[in-house]
């Protein structure tokens, strides 16, 4: 970089603006790519063609057309709705998503901000979205929305615990909470932590699916019972915000799982000098695999029942995650 550019980016506000602009372009892009993948893959799994006409070949422009359509739609707000809460709910959900990008390491030194409490920050900030979902459910003044919001709250509280506890195993192995520190610990160890933390990884992925309220955990927006749950009354760009947040959250949750368990931006045998450039590609490749698995699950499994969901979290995942922590800690002390 030239001297001027270095000076410019050394300025806190300039670099902050540049980072914000980058995330602001990344989220719609990620939303479109994963959204399109979901449409095409679900079509493939159900022997359909899926989007076909928009943009010519394979209907690649379908999501762009959808986005434009959402912006043209009227911003409907129900008569009895609590207007300020109704309006700010989708923004809060999207803020929770944007804030997660801060601590994802895309390569050696390629991170928006390497917080020393990295993974803990990620878990804390993702709970902001829960408040947004509850606000959306309540403020719509609609029984389906309220039921959806309540189900979402019950589910997100229940699965936040296994999510947090599953992370602890990797943190104990790495000896740090910093996201890039965890990747570096895996590079130093020479293997991704999933080899010793299979249980942690499995629990994390199950809890992540539930946190994303995706099938088989999509009771909060179960179409056959609740119309669209807490999203029922939303239209236009406010609905688009929820839609983008869902797909961007798929990316961030997968990226956190990749960082904690699958070696992040690192692949065995690739030297540090190459990783600087190849890191983001490797990370996004691994994220794509996990996102594919999530989409695959969605079109394979039926929906859980509400009591089955709670039983799974409280009676199985949390005790197993606690046992995993104890065993990991014992091994850490012994070896």
């Amino acid at each position, binding site marked *: 970089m030239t001297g001027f550019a270095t000076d410019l980016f050394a300025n806190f506000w300039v670099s902050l603006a540049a980072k914000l602009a980058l995330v602001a372009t990344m989220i719609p892009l990620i939303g479109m790519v994963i959204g399109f993948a979901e449409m095409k893959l679900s079509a493939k799994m159900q022997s359909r063609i899926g989007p076909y006409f928009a943009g010519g070949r394979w209907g690649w422009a379908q999501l762009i057309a959808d986005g434009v359509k959402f912006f043209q739609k009227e911003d409907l707000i129900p008569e009895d709705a609590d207007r300020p809460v109704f309006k700010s709910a989708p923004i809060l959900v999207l803020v929770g998503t944007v804030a997660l990008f801060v601590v994802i390491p895309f390569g050696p030194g390629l991170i928006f901000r390497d917080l*020393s409490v990295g993974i803990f920050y990620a878990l804390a900030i993702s*709970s902001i979205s829960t408040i947004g979902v509850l606000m959306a459910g309540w403020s719509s003044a609609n029984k389906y929305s309220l039921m959806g919001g309540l189900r979402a709250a019950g589910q997100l509280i229940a699965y936040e615990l296994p999510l947090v506890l599953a992370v602890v195993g990797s943190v104990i192995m790495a000896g740090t909470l910093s996201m890039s520190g965890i990747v570096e610990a895996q590079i130093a160890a020479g293997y991704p932590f999933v080899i010793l933390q299979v249980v942690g990884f499995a629990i994390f992925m199950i809890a992540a699916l539930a946190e994303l309220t995706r099938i088989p955990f999509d009771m909060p927006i179960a179409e056959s019972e609740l119309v669209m749950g807490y999203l029922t009354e939303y239209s236009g760009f406010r609905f688009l915000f929820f839609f983008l947040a869902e797909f961007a959250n798929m990316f961030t949750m997968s990226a956190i799982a990749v960082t904690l368990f699958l070696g992040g931006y690192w692949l065995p045998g690739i030297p540090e000098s190459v990783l600087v450039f190849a890191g983001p590609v490797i990370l996004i490749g691994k994220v794509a695999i996990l996102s594919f698995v999530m989409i695959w699950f969605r079109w394979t499994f039926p929906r859980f029942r509400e009591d089955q969901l709670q039983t799974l979290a409280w009676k199985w995942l949390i005790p197993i995650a606690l046992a995993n922590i104890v065993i990991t800690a014992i091994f850490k002390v012994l070896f």
Partner: protein
Amino acid sequence: MTFSAWISEPINWIFLLVGLVVLASGFRVVTAKNVVHAALLLVAALAGTAGLFLMLAAEFVAWVLVLVYIGAVIVLFLFGIMITRAPTGQDEGLDSEKKVVPALLSVGVFVLMAWGSIDAFGTTLVGATGDPISTELIGESLLGRFVIPFEVVSFVLLAALIGSITLARKDLTPIEEEEGRRV
């Protein structure tokens, strides 16, 4: 340090702004005419408090506040409110007649704590190195020097947990128990 010298530092503008947001939302929590609004304003107040902790370089405490209070306590508050009674719009029944004593009490607590900290520290800056307080240090002191208080607190929490399960459990009458056994 005079007030004009204090206010000329840009970092203090942010402190003032966040502090005012916390104060205003805290005031609105008690005066709000809608119970859900009050809970949401409490979120704003807690988020501002977390911001103040961040400005004091207490990173870990700030995120604990977000994870535990905003992510769990307020979500449970909202859950409880919505599952029982949560109309949109104004709810006049929320207002309490007794305002003077609580107001005096909160002002009194504030004065006491402000006087106490000014008396103890005055203008000396405590631990003002500018570096965030490391999480390792917190962990080590919790499991080292403060391990007994730490374990006592977890014991109290365990007792509370068992107590709440006992309270929430439905006690069966002898007849119901007999029937339950037969089924």
